[in-house]
């Protein structure tokens, strides 16, 4: 429907949206109910209510908060890099967050999850800032160089992390820590993820400025935007989501890539209009994949990161090969 550049009329004007929205709400509600019902424990027993409160509700919320946060981080990162094919977890942000956790583990082994998240966020901020500074030097006429560069950059940061972990005998430990998984989520062990909710709200607050930011530096400055401040704000959003998520549940790939790309393709580039759809889409995708992770090897768990890598890769290929519809 839309050409992926410039400003668009509000998607509210489009007739298909209301139907889409209704279908999405029904689907999302079904996923939430399923997530509350699926698990190893027996809800019908005496401790059923307790199980719901300490295990199922936290897990469902954790998946929703993670998905929404990662999708919004992906949207912001794509806006900053002006390219639809980058996302935090494959472009060095997630790897840098892992490096932060590793550094904290080596320097202060007993540090709390909150401290590790802080270290992960700081490292993610630095890693993402360097990525964006380097991406700016790529020729703008070659958009596919950006995702290629992102993969190489993510690989290099990941390799540094691996090397440090290898030297300190923490390789498998780091692997297990940072492989995205909700199996350990329960009451008292996921609450830090509420930071993601605050970040989605913050992104909503600066949505119009993000839209202007996506027009490029010159246009943005011409329209009166404080470009440097917005760039830092965008970086902070991406880094905080990556830091908190990697430290709490691990790295989860593809959400930040496929959700914003798909939603933008269908509903346009106006950040304020698409932001709720992207947040809900990310939440739904992660929730659905976590359900699969719980069911495929029941009663054992698969890492949701593995499920998403498979599902996400399939969706991403579909996105690449499908022709964008033109009006």
């Amino acid at each position, binding site marked *: 429907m839309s050409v992926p550049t410039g400003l668009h009329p509000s998607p509210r004007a489009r007739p298909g949206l209301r139907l889409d929205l209704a279908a999405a709400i029904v689907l999302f509600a079904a996923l939430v109910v399923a997530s509350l019902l699926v698990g*190893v424990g027996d809800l019908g027993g005496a401790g059923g209510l307790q*199980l719901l409160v*300490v295990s199922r509700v936290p897990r469902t919320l954790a998946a929703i908060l993670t998905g929404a946060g990662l999708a919004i981080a992906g949207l912001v990162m794509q806006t900053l890099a002006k390219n639809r094919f980058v996302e935090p977890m494959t472009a060095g942000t997630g790897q840098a967050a892992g490096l932060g956790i590793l550094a904290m583990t080596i320097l202060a082994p007993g540090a709390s999850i909150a401290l590790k998240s802080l270290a992960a966020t700081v490292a993610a901020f630095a890693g993402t800032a360097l990525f964006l500074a380097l991406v700016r030097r790529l020729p703008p006429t070659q958009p596919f160089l950006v995702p290629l560069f992102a993969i190489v950059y993510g690989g290099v940061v990941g390799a540094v992390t691996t090397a440090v972990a290898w030297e300190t005998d923490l390789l498998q430990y780091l692997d297990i820590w940072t492989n995205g998984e909700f*199996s350990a989520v329960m009451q008292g062990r996921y609450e830090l993820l509420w930071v993601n909710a605050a970040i989605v709200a913050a992104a909503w607050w600066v949505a119009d400025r993000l839209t202007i930011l996506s027009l490029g530096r010159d246009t943005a400055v011409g329209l009166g935007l404080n470009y440097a401040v917005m760039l830092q704000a965008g970086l902070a959003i991406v880094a905080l989501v990556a830091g908190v998520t990697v430290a709490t549940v691990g790295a989860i790939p593809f959400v930040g890539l496929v959700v914003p790309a798909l939603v933008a393709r269908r509903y346009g580039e106006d950040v304020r209009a698409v932001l709720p759809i992207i947040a809900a889409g990310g939440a739904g995708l992660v929730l659905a994949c976590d359900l699969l992770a*719980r069911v495929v090897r029941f009663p054992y768990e698969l890492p949701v990161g593995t499920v998403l890598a498979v599902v996400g890769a399939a969706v991403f290929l579909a996105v690449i090969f499908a022709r964008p519809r033109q009006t």
Partner: protein
Amino acid sequence: MKFPLSILAGSVVALALGTAAASATDIETATGAVEIDRTPKTIAVYDIAALDTINALGVTVAGVPDRLFLPELQPLARTAEVVGTIFEPDLEALNALAPDLVVVGGRSARQASETARVAQTIDMTIDGTELLDETLARIETYGILFGKEDRAETLAATLDEDIAEARAAVEGKGDALIIMTNGPKISVYGPGTRFGWLHSELGIPPAVDDLGAGIHGDAVSFEFVASANPDWLIVVDRAAAIGSGEQNARATLDNVLVRGTKAWSEGHVIYLPAADFYIAAGGADATGRILKAITEGFTAGK
């Protein structure tokens, strides 16, 4: 006087070499019977379990990996040369050491083809399901190989005693679930896994019958532990085993769902010596310590 002495010394060495060469023998390894010259003098060992047993026999080891994991093996760091890690042998250092025999096993078994380029290498890997039998067999084999038959017999007798005590202690005490904690996450190990010998050889009934046999265990949620509701929890802290000093197993397990199990509410939670169990199981002393921990845990818990 010097001249005759050195001739004498030379002839003693020749005699010793002659004896050694004459007593080439077949010994049982993980990859089958291997013919080997008896009593090799310079030995490099890349497996912590093998190192534990060989050290317990009183044999001097010349080459060891950079990390020894067990505090009991730390003295070796002062006397032996470091010849790489258990995952990556330093072939130059190994070559400089010029060993007669290299022992690999478990995590280092894959390096056998590399180290075999430097010296004869035997793979002494010990499997998980018949660990105690294999531990005893290895003690005997090393005894013959290094000419320490008497010491080997004593070690085997001690271990037999520990095994008998552990079997008696667990008898009729109910079922157990083996859990490994990985920082905040947990996985469980059933009868077919590398920790399965606790079930198959000591006779502790598994709390969940149809557990998978994945070598790294199966990742589970805390709901799984709550619903398995075992009489005993046998816990190994992976982070502690590899010495990372991370979040401890108790903190990971101390939550509403685990607290509700029979095991937790009755204090039936046994924390095994992590490095002995995860890194060095099959070593004579390490296995003894594991068995003692089992005996003590099950006896104290009644």
